[in-house]
């Protein structure tokens, strides 16, 4: 086994991903990359920009690059675009924001009151590779401090919503690639099955001693602090903070988690709604399959089946929110690593499409409609420029396809009340798209 100083240096400079290099690349001090929010101790905590517009967010994200983009409104005007021929995916007329359009049957079956606040975004993520999922969530390097969009949202929303914790929570990540980071720190993935047993306070005799135990832990913390260095003190601070957060967990709503028997999409939704009711975190991520990485999918059967279940899951989320009286306080969003090819020949599977991905935003801040569209590009189809005032696609649009992803991010921040200055300092380039906002 041989190595040389040169090889060490080369790896350092070219892509080994070490913190020093990441610091160079991102402009973030290495200490920030390593210490996360502790290193931001000097940064003033965000204040609530506009409480009246604040929303909880449920974000569906997939590193598989599911073919959502193939079957949504805006994809049925070009006869060369391939769709599943399964009757469950039949082209079906529907109305979005008073405008007639068409989509695969499952989308048209969403209740009209949901469709009236559903915006379909035709974007390009500009990557065809799965490992870029975290980068897409970071809007491909366009966010300040390389923060992920869900974390940007969480930071702004937490003070408005008074949530127990500021960080978002990944409930449905199927791999670490779909996990979240916050201020440079990787966050754990907490599957629905673990939630109830995790959050339920100890019962019996131990419950009565909790306050006393917290005092003891405080004394122990002081003991460690005596000889601690700065990093150890920061860790002790984090422990105290997390203990304080734990004590703010509402125990009366945890019974809702008892129905969870697996980590399925339905369970993720149950968990998300419950955690919102418990005011635990402003942003939760889930994973709803819409066909997955369907390179090989005879007659697009898998895509069809998962569209039926996927849209039904969104419908279920909406009805559960309505039943809980939360329909005006929670926004659903989706953002995947990329979309898939849709042109002729994609009858038994689809390939990665860096030029077209469709995101969905559903909630009170949005009006029904389609933002952007597609046109033939690079042997398949890609998102095109669109007009930010009308959402209409076309060459004269003021939002280029290359800016569509960041503009989506900016608009999501605007939708939940973040002010223009903060939006511009959080996301470089792009613009807020008024056409999407109610």
């Amino acid at each position, binding site marked *: 086994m041989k190595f040389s100083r040169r090889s060490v240096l080369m790896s350092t400079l070219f892509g080994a991903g*070490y913190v020093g290099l990441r610091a160079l690349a991102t402009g973030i001090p290495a200490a920030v990359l390593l210490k996360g929010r502790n290193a931001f101790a000097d940064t003033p905590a965000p204040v609530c920009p506009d409480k009246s517009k604040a929303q909880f967010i449920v974000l569906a994200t997939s590193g598989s690059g599911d073919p959502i983009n193939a079957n949504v409104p805006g994809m049925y005007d070009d006869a060369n675009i391939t769709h599943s021929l399964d009757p469950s995916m039949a082209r079906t007329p529907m109305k979005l924001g008073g405008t007639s359009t068409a989509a695969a049957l499952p989308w048209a079956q969403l209740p009209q009151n949901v469709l009236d606040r559903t915006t379909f975004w035709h974007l390009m993520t500009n990557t065809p590779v799965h490992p870029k999922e975290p980068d897409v969530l970071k809007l491909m390097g366009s966010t300040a401090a390389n923060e992920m969009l869900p974390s940007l949202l969480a930071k702004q929303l937490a003070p408005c919503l008074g949530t127990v914790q500021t960080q978002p929570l990944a409930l449905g990540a199927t791999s670490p690639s779909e996990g979240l980071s916050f201020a440079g720190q990787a966050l754990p993935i907490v599957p629905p099955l673990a939630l109830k047993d995790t959050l339920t306070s*100890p019962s019996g*005799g131990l419950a009565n001693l909790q306050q006393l135990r917290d005092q003891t832990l405080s004394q122990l913390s002081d003991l460690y602090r005596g000889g601690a260095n700065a990093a150890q003190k920061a860790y002790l601070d984090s422990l105290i903070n997390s203990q304080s957060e734990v004590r703010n967990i509402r125990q009366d709503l945890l019974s809702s988690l008892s129905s969870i028997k697996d980590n399925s999409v339905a369970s993720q939704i149950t968990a998300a709604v419950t955690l919102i009711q418990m005011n635990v975190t402003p942003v939760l991520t889930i994973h709803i399959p819409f066909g997955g990485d369907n390179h090989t999918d005879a007659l697009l059967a898998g895509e069809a089946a998962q569209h039926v279940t996927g849209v039904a899951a969104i419908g279920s989320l909406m009805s559960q929110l309505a039943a809980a009286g939360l329909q005006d306080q929670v926004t659903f969003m989706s953002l995947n690593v990329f979309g898939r090819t849709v042109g002729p020949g994609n009858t038994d599977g689809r390939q990665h499409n860096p030029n077209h991905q469709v995101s969905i935003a559903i909630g009170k801040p949005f009006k029904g409609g389609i933002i952007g569209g597609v046109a033939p590009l690079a042997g398949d189809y890609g998102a095109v420029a669109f007009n930010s005032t009308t959402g209409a696609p076309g060459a004269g649009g003021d939002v280029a396809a290359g800016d569509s992803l960041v503009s989506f991010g900016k608009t999501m921040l605007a939708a939940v009340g973040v002010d223009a200055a903060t939006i511009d300092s959080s996301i470089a380039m792009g613009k807020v798209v008024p056409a999407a906002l109610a």
Partner: protein
Amino acid sequence: MKPSLFVRAATGVAFMTVAALAGCGNDKADDDGAPADTFAPDPPSVYVAKVKNILVGQAPTDDEIAQVTADPTAIGTLIDGWMQLPEYQQKMMVFFELAFQQTQISEADFVDLVPTNGLGVGKGVPLLVQNARESFARTVLELTAAGQPLNAAFTTHQFMMTPALMELYAFMDTRPVNDTAAVTDTFAKANPSMMITMETAAGPIAFADSINPKSANYMHWYSPDVAGLTYPDPTCSNLDPIAFKVNAQALHALLYGEIPNHPGPSGNCGNRSGSVVTGQIDPTDFTAWKMVTVRSPKAGEARTTFYDLPSLRTATELVLDTPHVGFFSTPAFFANWPTNASNQMRVTANQSLIVATGTAVDGQDTTAPQTTPGLDAVHAAPGTACFGCHQQLDPTRSILSSTYSWFYYPQTDQTLVKQPGLFAFQDVIAPMTTIDSFAQLLATHPLVGQAWAQKLCYYVNSAPCNPIDPEFLRILDVFNKAGGTWSSLVHELLASPLTTNVSETATTKTNGEVIAVSRRDHLCAALNNRLGFVDICQLDSTMQGRAVSSLAQIISGMPSDGYGRGATIPVLPNQPTLFYRAGLENVCAQVSAMVIDTKPSAQQPGSKQWSSAQPDAAIADFVALLMAMPPSDPRAAQATTILRSHFDASVQAGATSKDALASTFVAACLSPSFIGIGM
């Protein structure tokens, strides 16, 4: 174009800049008034505890701390001793599973690999998957124990296997799948008229008879479940015997307890998982590990018969058409990284490079081969933006597509077979003729040493080492001079100030010290090894007959080490989040119920036990074992006083002495030094 000296020099400057930036960012007084960026060395009581916890999950003793206090170099001797303990093997096994990317798989991940039903639904299948996850880590341990260098694991044809895992290798080899997903079931092809029968009422059939072609019971299998099966279609219910046309997948599945699809009077009767006892495979077939050599058949030699379990139990060879070499061709690695007609082995090649060299094809590598055999010219023609990556990735992956189909069976497309490509990655350009060439090039790549030192840095410190830190380079030098033996690297890094923080290094200057939560694997090892439990977290599915405990459910949500596709560094959640803190409190509470005023359970016969009638003895243990503060630790006396006060106050508040001691245990269990690495 090769990087210039200027670029290299800039690298060094860059790190100084980063260090300066980091320093500016932290150049503030902390809440006690001390400058936050002033280096403060850790005392032996802290770093001996850290090192021993990392290596064996145990707390230090007074004697160990005294040795290091008297002579700081004694830490090296202690490390050597700890590396001889079985607990070290357990910890390294978890490390190697992750580092060689053999984990993060489940039964579902084998469906692509074994289309279309995967491994089946038998109750034994999860155990088989666990065998697959563990196999390569065990292989590395075996090789390193035999004095082999780490990179011997890249080229090995020997793998630690159980009889069950041998069956899987041989089964897959019996049933190759080509690029178009067409399955060739060679067993069925050789026995076109054969039917497989399963029955209950006719009584047990000896396994030897079931697999003996000369027996009247050949391919007749006993299962106590057959007679009792019920279906929505009543004509399928209670059929006994059942019979179905021969196919290797069904035969494989029934070995693990499945009742496969079979015809009924009015149509197909679907498969059933069966009960635990219906498996033809023995429980010991999942636990009897041995080194097995995988080789190709000699002329005229038959391949290994997958269902002949008695032979597999004694065999030390597998004769297979499918080549298996090193870490990147195990069923676990293949299941982890499925490829397809579009990806065409790029993921397999890239993940192999990441494992071996810690570096990915990312468009930054300036290695430019003169020729690019295997290049996807349609997608990445010279001059296009895609060419930068594909000029390395496509020639390099070609040896994989030349060897394997998109489903990881022997490649049958002669166009691909004849295109072995060219290795072109990070300054190494070399021809390849076989999959062994690829393995050899990975093993000898100049980035291997630092890649594995970095993996260990992440494991030990939850952060990278500065790659131009002189101390890091010194460790690499020792590793190199020791012939690349893993134990030399572990010894050097764990004894180094990079781990112990006894003196300031360029790494701490650049990145600071990282104190991380005790993530799942460290936490569970500490609970097991300090409190006498056996797999308290239920991470080992080969330990059968256990209901999933609430503790195990919580553990499933605990932060754990992971790797993402294409990522060169592990995903390491380091912060004590709300969920970590809440979950851990419940874990500690549940453990307290197993160790305070109770008797060891049948499942945990060796667990520690404490009596609330003797709180002082218990508390002394809590401080020493859980908080890792032996009596000589300057904090131990005060910690003992605090916990004793808690016990007394609890009793005074009306708690029973049992609850009081349980609460005291929970407090110790939640102490910063038990749930944090480096406290």
